[in-house]
């Protein structure tokens, strides 16, 4: 596959290995995600979808198997290299937003840039803030914003390093349905502009925005279908 962005090969994740309470969260996952895809990972709690997301986002390493991103084996990276990988290649959007309350919007968006060399960081921050429609809120504190606006700031923060993938973990879980629709429309727009988006959700409606749904159950991918 010429434009495969992510390739997971027989990924397993075992917690408490060789102990009485050994738990196999992933039991050999094979998955390919292409450049520019909009993928929803679905599954009930305990299915292993969070573990899968953590591995894709380089927050966790697989017990065995290969995780290639643009040909680079992420599973082989040392903690410092993993940190750099998260910094450069992954933009996280969380259900809890996770903005730093003491920092203003601009500084929140700039957060990833202090851990990696970025030229014109402030210019870029203004650009991504404009993209999410919040350039006029740059100096506001998170507690002065609505839930939807807060999540937009988080999305801007995920975009600033121009990452290979945007990982969104239940991004609308704490939002009302109207705001959720707006946020999902923003993701659609970002995908349209060429960003690869991986969405983790248990909400069918939210998953419907994605072009492909990957269903996970009991640590295995049971279904991967294109919707659009």
């Amino acid at each position, binding site marked *: 596959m010429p434009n495969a962005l992510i390739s997971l090969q027989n990924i397993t994740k075992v917690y408490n290995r060789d102990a009485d309470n050994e738990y196999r969260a992933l039991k050999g996952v094979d998955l390919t995600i292409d450049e520019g895809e909009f993928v929803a990972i679905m599954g009930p709690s305990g299915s292993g979808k969070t573990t899968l997301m953590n591995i894709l986002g380089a*927050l966790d390493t697989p017990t065995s198997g290969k995780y290639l991103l643009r040909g680079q084996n992420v599973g082989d990276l040392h903690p410092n290299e993993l940190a*750099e990988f*998260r910094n*450069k290649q992954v933009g996280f959007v*969380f259900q809890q937003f*996770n903005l730093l309350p003491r920092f203003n919007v601009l500084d929140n968006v700039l*957060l990833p840039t202090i*851990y990696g060399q970025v030229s014109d960081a402030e210019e870029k921050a203004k650009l991504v803030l404009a993209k999410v429609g919040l350039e006029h809120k740059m100096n506001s504190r998170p507690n002065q914003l609505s839930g939807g606006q807060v999540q937009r700031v988080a999305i801007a*923060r995920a975009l600033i390093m121009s990452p290979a993938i945007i990982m969104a973990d239940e991004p609308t879980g704490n939002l009302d349905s109207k705001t959720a629709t707006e946020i999902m429309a923003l993701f659609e727009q970002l995908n349209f502009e060429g960003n690869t988006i991986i969405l983790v959700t248990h909400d069918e409606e939210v998953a419907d925005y994605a072009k492909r749904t990957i269903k996970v159950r009991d640590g295995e991918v049971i279904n991967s279908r294109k919707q659009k």
Partner: protein
Amino acid sequence: MSIRELVKISWFSIRANKVRAVLTTLGIVIGIGAVIAMLSVGQGAQQVILEQVEGLGANTVSIIPVANFRGPQSRSTFQQLLVNRLDKRLLETFANEVRFPEVEQIGAELSNSYEVSYRSEAAFLTVYGVSASLFDIREAELDRGQLFDANDEARQAKVAVLGSQAAQRLFNLDDPIGKVININGIKFTVVAILKPKSAGVDNRVDIPLTAMSSYLTGSRDVSQIVLRAKDESVVDTLATKVEDELRDFYHVAEGKQGDFTVFTSQDIQELASTVTSIFTTLLASIAGISLIVGGIGIMNIMLVSVTERTKEIGLRKAVGAKQSAILGQFLMESVLLTLIGGIIGIVLGVGLGLLVGAVGGFTIIISLQSIALATSVSVAIGLVFGFYPAYRAAQLNPIEALRYE
């Protein structure tokens, strides 16, 4: 990640918990303040003592009698101390220019406590019979009147030179010059007053050695001989020669100790310097203990801070912060806390030192070294006591940290 970023982040987080930061740094403030105050008082005391020692004269070799315990049948040490004197003939020996070319001036004194009175005022003061040359050797500074000289000494003049305190005690506001005082029933005329120098000098009454011998003690011996060397470089040589001469004079057997001791002005200075620096170190160490207590407070609050901000740490790790970056952030925060505390402590300590000096009448020295020391100590406390909390923060698992509620 730049230092500027680190400072900014740390400053934000300290500002977010102002009351807590103030209370936490209080330990450091008090500790550093105490160290600075103690050092300034200690170093001030050191200088005062050194000045006093210098008041004994520069480049001098002094000989004083000492009592040596010789066995149960001998007199008590205290009695010996009172009785022991140096033979006055030694003065002629050391005046021999051929044998002691290093000697520039010779002085001797004989002291005893007497009731000294002027009209209705009376006080027990130490009266010193001194050779006139001793004023010169001791670099005594004249306030008023005229010091007695060798002629007065030769004719056993009944004149007295008062230290500033002694003059004050006997005369209050009266002008003592020309007045007659009574020393142990003998009348002496006050001819001069000395400038204040140190407690020891200010309380003495100096009269000619010859007058002391003739009218007061009846003894021809002296209680101290002071030789001034021509040059600093020959002081030690002179001291050795004097020691040999004394052993000879008093027939002290090889390996035995004589009833005298010889010391140079440098010996005294070194001794005073050692004693006062021990004193200063002791004071500073006691104050230092409060710094350790302060440091534990810092560690405690940093551990709380790390726990409170677990989620923030998880987020920072998720967006690419390496362990070293998290470690640096929390170390910077604790160092900033202790440094701020240290600076406030220095200001407070200087103020306290000046206050103690003003109230107690001590000399205070606030040296750049002690301020530099206090600053580096406060940074060091931040590093040492901040390390464990910062290390804990750096080791947090990002997934668990993000999930922390």
